[in-house]
């Protein structure tokens, strides 16, 4: 029996489609790799120097598109709210399976290191790759490790509410202070001199806003993970 009869038509067409996609992507890459010209990114890189932040991506995400980031935070909040409404129950629920000794011991040793790395990525978002979103999700993955290793662990709900309220309110407040001081919503009203580029305390409000974003993303993702992992069977 030949190979052509064994494979169904959908599989063969899938292979053909993948081949065409590979050729197209390679063609685009080979044509554009040595092309140097003026692009939108070059203009943004020139503007980036005025804010005194070493990581240009952070300047774009937090400063040039700061209002969009506020909207993304709102979208994540609504997603967390929906998952909480659908899956949360008032009764005490626990994971049925008991975790083994290795997981319990290793999670106690790994959790502080994961938290430290998450906070580092969050605080140094304006100097190196990373930022609030990534740092927040790293912290949430540390919380997930605790949740699957310890049966009785619960994310403290009052602390999450306090952190999330603080982060959301202070983001809007910083934007309104910018509107009052320099007539621009989310304007950079703190000193941001270019000579301080690369220092930890540089860039005015940009690192502050990214830390606020990190706090909000971390608390929301922790709640999402907890609501997904803990649920009674007979709800």
């Amino acid at each position: 029996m030949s190979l052509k009869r064994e494979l169904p038509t959908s599989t063969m067409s899938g292979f053909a489609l993948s081949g065409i996609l590979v050729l197209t992507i390679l063609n685009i890459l080979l044509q554009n790799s040595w092309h140097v010209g003026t692009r939108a990114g070059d203009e943004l890189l020139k503007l980036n120097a005025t804010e005194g932040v070493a990581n240009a991506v952070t300047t774009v995400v937090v400063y040039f598109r700061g209002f969009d980031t506020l909207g993304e935070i709102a979208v994540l909040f609504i997603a967390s709210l929906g998952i909480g409404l659908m899956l949360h129950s008032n009764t005490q629920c626990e994971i049925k399976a008991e975790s083994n000794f290795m997981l319990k011991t290793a999670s106690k040793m790994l959790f502080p290191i994961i938290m430290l790395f998450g906070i580092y990525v969050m605080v140094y978002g304006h100097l190196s790759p990373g930022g609030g979103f990534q740092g927040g999700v790293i912290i949430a993955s540390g919380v997930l490790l605790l949740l699957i290793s310890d049966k009785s662990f619960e994310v403290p709900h009052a602390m999450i509410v306090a952190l999330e309220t603080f982060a959301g309110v202070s983001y809007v407040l910083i934007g309104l202070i910018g509107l009052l001081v320099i007539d621009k919503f989310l304007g950079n009203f703190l000193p941001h001199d270019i000579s301080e580029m690369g220092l930890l305390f540089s860039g005015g409000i940009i690192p502050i806003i990214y830390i606020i974003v990190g706090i909000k993303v971390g608390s929301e993702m922790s709640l999402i993970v907890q609501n997904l992992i803990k649920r009674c069977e007979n709800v």
Partner: protein
Amino acid sequence: MIGFIILVTFLAIIVVAFTSITQKKLADSIILFMGVGLGSVILFFVFKAPDVALTEAVIGAGISSIIFLMALKHLGVKA
């Protein structure tokens, strides 16, 4: 050398993605989807976008696969 790495990663991503959509078990499919994310991390890093690579490693390959697996557990499908 860099071109060779890019080519191999591209081919690996396509093979893993195709294996992922042809799996019978949904859990295997999700694990292979994680592999697609890891391949894209290498590509983003080689193409000088470390911010996007970090985001993809944390969100695309990490927490979204875990959320998929937990949602699969809630659905009650025999995985």
